[in-house]
């Protein structure tokens, strides 16, 4: 094995910040003349589970309150969604705890799912051949009573429900700028369409609009564009910085149904503490009457990894070579692919959830339970709680939504996140020691060892170069795949001649350049073949490959939404 290349001076992406001042660029006063502004009651940015739950709950409450409905105007609830349809950018493993969706819509039990979890296993993968089952299944991995779902599909269903209730769903529309006046959030400005590469106006140019709202809900998901700016500009950041993991997922059509959910730890990730590789896999059977059996398989790894050559997409391909996995997938066909970042900062990274006129819900606020791998029901629950606070406060003509934050912390969402507050951080000590500490935390519901284990920004992790990439299989196009064939399956057709929506420093040391190249599951960043082995590299950026997973925001760049409608069109992610 070749020697790992450790730079003499620690190099980290955070030393090369993106050329963007997000507060200045993405927060500001309305600019449209007053009579051209679009007035809505509540503007919800993001049509995911949190946004849709918020819309549905608001309209349920407004149904019995014609007076407030009247005051909210012609469009009481608007959902601004950047995808082609609601759910187009949605991806999860996904196992959902049904408690929140049942509370939200008690009379509608026909939400789409792929089977109730009836069996589960956890394996520790020793190497590329062997695995040992962990028995009994460790408590966080117990999923009885939960359901396998596709959030892309679930969101199309939620979107229909919201629309039936009276929500206006504005698809192919991005929330580009948060409108703030006198310290109060007044709405959002939507993004322009039809700009050319250099930012000029094409023949079909359509400027964005100021959407003025009495309440603004940021439910933007894992890499909130406006949320990021708001955390900085409105001083909402939590105790710790947010940290993320990257998940890459495939859906397979298989011959034999898999009647359980499987999680794995260990191989192909390396246990050594210096690599900082924390993560694992999931393999979920997706079974539905009248449909060929399917399997959701994916791999997740923390983005504070040290090795610039760690590629989660390629780790997933490597993982599929394990005989345990082959037995499940072989003879099947990959029908879908996708990638998404996951906020893993947990409790300590939770931001303040409100500002005058605004609240933050779901993944945008980092409401993910890392040890339990759950977040869908938190998103629904927080959207619902936000709706209830907004309804109460708008009745009183107030823009103070602070009671939403208290409601979240008092709910199961807040309680669960508090109990698991330190459960990711110990893994920086390596898998074995980290695992032991975390187990102690699980058993004591987070009381031992207590305190505050700090998170550090992913982009500050110093990088090293190893021969990690030599282990990735060469894609055969049948069982193992390259990145671009995955991007193709997402239906991504981002316009080529649009301005780049990815803000990064393009001239960086090789370590940083490679870290972005290997990290990105969609092949957006390329180190030129003739780049020097030492010294700065001028990265090639292919923004139209981007599936908007958000990893670059975690790892020292800044993603912004491209033109509305661009990006993937996930069906069954």
């Amino acid at each position, binding site marked *: 094995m070749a020697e790992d290349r450790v730079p003499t001076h620690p190099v980290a992406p955070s030393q090369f910040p993106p050329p963007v001042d997000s507060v200045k660029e993405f927060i500001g006063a309305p600019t449209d003349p007053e009579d051209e502004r679009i007035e809505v009651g509540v503007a919800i940015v993001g049509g995911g589970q949190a946004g849709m739950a918020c819309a549905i709950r608001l309209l349920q409450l407004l149904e019995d309150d014609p007076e407030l409905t009247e005051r909210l105007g012609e469009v009481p609830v608007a959902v601004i969604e950047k995808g082609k349809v609601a759910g187009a950018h949605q991806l999860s493993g996904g196992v959902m705890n049904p408690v929140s969706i049942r509370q939200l819509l008690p009379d509608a039990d026909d939400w789409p799912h792929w089977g109730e979890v009836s069996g589960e296993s956890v394996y520790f993968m020793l190497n590329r051949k062997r695995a040992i089952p962990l028995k009994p299944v460790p408590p966080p991995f117990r999923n009885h009573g939960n359901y396998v779902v596709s959030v892309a599909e679930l969101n199309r269903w939620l979107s229909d429900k919201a629309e039936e209730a009276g929500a206006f769903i504005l698809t192919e529309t991005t929330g580009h700028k948060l409108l703030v006046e006198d310290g109060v959030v007044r709405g959002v400005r939507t993004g322009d369409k039809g700009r050319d590469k250099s930012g000029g106006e094409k023949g079909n140019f359509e400027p964005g609009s100021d959407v003025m709202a009495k309440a603004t809900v940021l439910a933007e998901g894992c890499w909130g564009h406006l949320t990021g700016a708001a955390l900085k500009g409105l001083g909402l950041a939590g105790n710790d910085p947010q940290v993320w993991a990257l998940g890459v997922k495939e859906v397979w059509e298989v011959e034999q149904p898999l009647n359980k959910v499987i999680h794995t730890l260990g191989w192909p990730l390396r246990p050594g503490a210096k690599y900082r590789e924390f993560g694992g896999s999931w393999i979920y059977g997706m079974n539905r009457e009248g449909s060929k059996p399917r399997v959701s398989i994916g791999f997740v790894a923390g983005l504070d990894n040290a090795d610039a050559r760690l590629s989660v997409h390629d780790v997933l391909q490597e993982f599929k070579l394990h005989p345990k996995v082959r037995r499940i997938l072989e003879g099947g066909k990959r029908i879908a692919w996708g990638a998404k970042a996951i906020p893993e900062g947990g409790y300590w990274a939770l931001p303040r959830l409100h500002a005058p006129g605004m609240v933050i819900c779901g993944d945008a606020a980092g409401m993910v339970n890392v040890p339990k791998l759950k977040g869908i029901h938190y998103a629904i629950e927080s959207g619902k709680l936000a709706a209830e606070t907004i309804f109460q406060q708008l009745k009183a003509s107030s823009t103070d939504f602070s009671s939403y934050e208290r409601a979240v912390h008092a709910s199961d969402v807040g309680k669960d996140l508090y109990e698991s507050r330190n459960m990711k951080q110990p893994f920086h000590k390596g898998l074995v020691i980290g695992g032991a500490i975390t187990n102690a935390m699980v058993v004591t519901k987070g009381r031992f060892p207590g305190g505050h284990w700090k998170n550090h920004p992913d982009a500050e992790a110093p990088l090293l170069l190893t021969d990690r990439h030599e282990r990735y299989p060469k894609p055969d196009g049948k069982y193992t795949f390259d990145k671009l064939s995955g991007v*193709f399956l997402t239906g*991504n057709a981002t316009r080529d001649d649009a301005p780049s929506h990815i803000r990064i420093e393009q001239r960086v040391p090789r370590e940083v350049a490679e870290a972005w190249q290997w990290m990105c599951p969609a092949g957006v960043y390329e180190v030129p073949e003739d780049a020097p082995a030492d010294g700065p590299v001028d990265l090639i950026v292919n923004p139209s490959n981007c599936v908007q997973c958000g990893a670059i925001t975690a790892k020292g760049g800044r993603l912004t939404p491209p033109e509305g409608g661009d990006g993937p069109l996930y069906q069954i992610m």
Partner: protein
Amino acid sequence: MSGILVYALHYEGAINKNSLGAVSEGARLASELGTECHAIVVGETAGLTDELCSSLGAYGATKVFRAEGPEGLAQPVVDAMAKVITDNDLGYALFGGGLLGFEIGAGLTARLDAGVCMEVVSVRVEDGKLVSERPILGDSQISDVHYDAGVGVIIGRLNAFEASENGSGAATVEDVVVDYAPHSLKATMVQRGEQRGADVNIEDAQFLVAGGRGLGKAEGFEALEQLAGALGGAVAATRAVVDAGWYSYSAQIGQTGKTVAPKLYLAAGISGAIQHKVGMQSSENIVAINKDANAPIFEFSDLGIVGDLNKIVPKLTEAVKAKKGS
């Protein structure tokens, strides 16, 4: 009623290549359905000679309807096609593609309350009816579209249908008098020009020499232009090099560029990602030059050359010139 009417676009005394493809496709489908394929031309009488119209017979049209009217505009053609379809009780309207085809097809669909499918890449006969196949989700899947309505409108993707002279000879020409709606005559053709300022229409070229990042630099295209010139063809490019500013967007092939199907597609320094492949996979002959023997393009090339394109391309140009004796 199951007869097929194909719109044939003409310009400066010649029928458009995609229209010829649509006529051939219409004739093939008509024979499977046990019916006939007709074509329709709309324009100024002077340009629509009997000879030009009846030449569509070579591609399988049995009858060509000739309507006098404004050229190159959609609404007059909608009027003319609606009349011919209604008068002759035809079942399908077929277009070879292009923006004009989309516009006429959409108008015709509204007029006849028909069913429509655009960007069709293939049509087949099933239970005595036509079924259109259309790529969706960025070409990653194919959907089948069946027609419920009385009339089915099929708008092909550019180059989806190949022109073949399988017809039995000259078609009969029938003049139709169309009573144009007032709004159809409001627009006039002011000027015609190639979209996006391209010098050569790469979608119509028989020989394409395409360059990718393997050229190394923008100047690499000079050698490709010489080879294309010698072959009498045009130069195309991948997204990567267009992004890098080495060549113009109008020459971009692939998922987010143009779709082509020339007789020869010579790919120089192109790795062959699927996003490029979907734009050129129906080319008749694919020849790839790449220094990386593992490049995916070799998996769908008819002929692959592993080597230095900077050496191979100029030699190829010389050889073509020598063969052509110029």
